[in-house]
């Protein structure tokens, strides 16, 4: 076996042939159904909170409070990882996944201390999400500013 480019390419092909693929169809159905159901729960809360005197922004914040709170509870009890294993993107693409990505390292890394363990590791995934979200929003804001105010 030689470590040259040709044999590396051939090896990579052979590995792809031998390695099983994830059962894409089944995974997609599970993600679709679970993700859909979480959104239906969000919609139901949207409607019921709207019956009270909340503004639109307050309603969506309250929906987030419930979904994030539920995620935190399930994560703390060790149940979210079981659900996530089943539903994949169905639970991590909704706000539940964002919340889980903050709660799980916060719990796990408190052994390394409350400052650089818990508090720092809380943002391993959420940090990049916030950074790229904000940077994109600045780009969007800049283009909007140029389009609306300058031109």
């Amino acid at each position, binding site marked *: 076996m030689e470590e040259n480019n040709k044999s590396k390419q051939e090896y990579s092909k052979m590995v792809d042939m031998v390695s099983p693929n994830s059962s894409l169809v089944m995974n997609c159905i599970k993600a679709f159904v679970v993700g859909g159901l979480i959104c239906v729960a969000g919609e139901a809360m949207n409607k019921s909170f709207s019956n009270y005197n909340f503004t639109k922004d307050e309603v969506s914040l309250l929906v987030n409070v419930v979904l994030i709170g539920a995620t935190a509870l399930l994560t703390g009890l060790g149940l979210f990882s079981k659900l996530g294993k089943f539903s994949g993107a169905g639970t991590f693409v909704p706000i539940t996944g964002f919340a889980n990505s903050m709660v799980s390292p916060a719990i796990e890394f408190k052994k390394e201390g409350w400052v650089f363990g818990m508090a720092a590791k809380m943002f391993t995934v959420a940090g*990049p999400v916030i950074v790229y979200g904000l940077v*994109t929003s600045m780009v969007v*804001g800049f283009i909007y500013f140029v389009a609306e105010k300058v031109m």
Partner: protein
Amino acid sequence: MDYIKAFIVGGIICLIGQILVDKTKLTSGRILVIFVSLGCILGGLGLYKNIVDFGGAGATVPLTGFGYVLSEGVKEEVDKIGFLGIFTGGLKASAGGISVAVFFAFLSALLFNPKSKG
């Protein structure tokens, strides 16, 4: 009817995420980054609003909805205070969501201990 729309729109967004996981070997963290940026770009282009109008929570609960909130927030602030709104709008609009997540993560760390699995 709104529930069915929310189910379908939310389901499809998650399904796209699942295809990315299984086909590209991107980790879930990277996919969240892509989704939030994508939601923000679509929001900036004015397209995501149509999805929200149609799908309701189906469009706001997935992380693309978080990106949409950022884009709406930044536009609103630019309208209100002009140039500096570019810097403040996104975080202002998402402040509630981020703070709630920090609160619950902190609380969970106080209440729970790490668990094994399997």
